[in-house]
């Protein structure tokens, strides 16, 4: 073999290396095939999983089945109650719940589960806001883009208050849930008729029906996010036949799978082309006040999300249905809340050029506070104000813990 021929063969071998190295299946094929492989698990393994799920369901407190029963009742009473906007009230999972959906009359009561005496959870950790930090969990939970009229502004500002805050209550409920176990996740999967496939890293479980894959995960520490589920169709789901708009389609789809919210919410939809994102924004009932939205670490409202293409669901994600215990806690006054908000930006002396921001709105909200085995939904006051710097409109948000400082651990 001469040198030239040798070089030719070496070049061809390099091309072959490249050809084999770069020949790969189309994107998504690996996950599709893995799903198919899992679907071919032996029938005995499936049965074992299903039985284990059932047995665990009998052994443990039936949080999900109770919710499912409540949802069934809601569906039986008529999905027509649901409208595109305004307050929607789901059935509660516990006997102490006294929410009602009758002709606009609202009764307030504990969210679900057991109601403890005032301060029953002891000293509470405080909620915090992480302004300006993009929410990394945005791919798997409702992110209401409409709730962010300006860019978040993380820098120092000089704050003033020009709004009006009426806190007509002196106490508010705090809600607590226990961190779900894999058994809880398995129960949830079983309630959807899904079979356990695996426990991928970061998830309590991955489950599957013939139509969709469901993943369940526990609480995320940062950014704080409660245990959640995400449903992704394996194949195109059947379009939903609903008389109303996108929100009705979303709710009917959720109800078909016993996932319609058992908590109060309002709905918002954003459409782009034939794709619509429906957000069911979670609220908590506060006796004597009304409803308070749940906000994330950026101060944005969130809850359940259903993505639609036309009338066909393409994704559903939201909080895992969990039983909540509740206990009332004294909260600060409006004046104290304003003082705390204004005191939250002490960098004026260090940054004399800090923009001046007038906080113009404030509302009672709920914020998730992650705390180990048990986490809390705690009341807080969310102050907001927009301002312009270099032609850009920014939004400043300040979250003030509403629970009386004497009942907080920090």
């Amino acid at each position, binding site marked *: 073999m001469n040198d030239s021929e040798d070089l*030719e*063969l070496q070049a061809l071998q390099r*091309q072959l290396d490249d*050809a084999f190295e770069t*020949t790969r*299946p189309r994107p998504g094929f690996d996950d599709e*095939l893995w799903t198919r492989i899992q679907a071919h698990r032996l029938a005995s393994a499936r049965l074992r999983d299903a039985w284990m799920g059932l047995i665990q369901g009998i052994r443990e407190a039936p949080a999900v089945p109770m919710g499912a029963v409540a949802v069934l009742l809601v569906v039986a009473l008529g999905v027509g109650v649901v409208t595109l906007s305004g307050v929607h009230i789901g059935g509660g999972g516990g006997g102490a719940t006294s929410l009602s959906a009758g002709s606009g009359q609202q009764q307030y009561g504990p969210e679900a589960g057991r109601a403890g005496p005032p301060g029953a959870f002891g000293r509470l950790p405080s909620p915090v806001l992480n302004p300006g930090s993009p929410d990394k969990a945005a791919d798997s939970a409702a992110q209401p883009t409409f709730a962010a009229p300006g860019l978040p502004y993380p820098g120092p500002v000089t704050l003033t208050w020009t709004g009006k805050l009426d806190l007509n209550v002196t106490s508010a409920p705090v809600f607590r849930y226990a961190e779900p176990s894999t058994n809880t996740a398995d129960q949830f999967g079983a309630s959807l008729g899904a079979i356990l496939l695996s426990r991928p890293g970061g998830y309590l479980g991955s489950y599957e029906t013939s139509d969709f894959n469901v993943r369940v995960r526990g609480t995320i520490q940062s950014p704080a996010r409660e245990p959640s589920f995400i449903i992704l169709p394996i194949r195109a789901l059947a379009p939903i036949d609903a008389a109303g708009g996108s929100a009705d389609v979303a709710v009917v789809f959720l109800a078909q799978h016993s996932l319609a919210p058992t908590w109060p919410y309002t709905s918002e939809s954003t459409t782009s082309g034939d794709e619509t994102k429906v957000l069911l924004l979670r609220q908590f009932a506060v006796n004597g006040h009304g409803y308070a939205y749940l906000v994330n670490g950026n101060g944005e409202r969130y809850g359940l999300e259903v993505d639609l293409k036309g009338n066909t669901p393409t994704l559903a994600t939201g909080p895992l249905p969990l039983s909540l215990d509740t206990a009332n806690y004294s909260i600060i006054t409006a004046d104290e809340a304003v003082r705390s908000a204004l005191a939250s930006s002490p960098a004026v002396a260090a940054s004399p050029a800090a923009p001046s921001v007038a906080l113009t709105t404030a509302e009672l909200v709920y914020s998730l506070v992650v705390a180990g085995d048990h986490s809390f939904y705690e009341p807080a006051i969310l102050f907001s104000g927009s301002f312009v710097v270099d032609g850009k409109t920014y939004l400043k948000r300040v979250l003030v813990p509403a629970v009386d400082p004497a009942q907080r651990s920090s």
Partner: protein
Amino acid sequence: MLADRPQFEDLYRAYLGRIYAYVRAQVSSSADAEDITAQVFMNAYQAYARFEARNTTPAAWLFRIARNATLDHFRAHGRRERLRRTIEHQPMAEQDPSGLAEERIQYRALLERVGRLPERQRDAISLRHSGLSFEEVGTLLKCSEDAAKMLYHRAVKGLRDAVEKEGA
């Protein structure tokens, strides 16, 4: 489960691409390659309980399954496919635009030529460039390591000749 045996999913994620590339070099369409690759891993999944890492490497084990699945495919469809390739003697039909994007065009033609080599030469090239050692190639092709090397080099020369002939 043996301690030195990886989780099947790890094996699957690590080898899916290589197995697909190996199969793709043998068959005329990405759809067939997907079907065969799927069959390979279905078979492997069912047989994994019997896999013993001390007897063979996971790569050699998987490529043996892949080779058998490809041979099965040819038994069922091969005569028609080989006839078509011989008659058409042109790049493989690939109507699906997403399929065109799936692989680099310049390498697809090369793999296509590999696919037209005699069976054992085709296998020698495909297995070797899928990352197997000559010893593993020899085991799979039921010959010695030296024989596998000779077979491979003959195959590469044959491929070069085919490329030159078609380019002429």
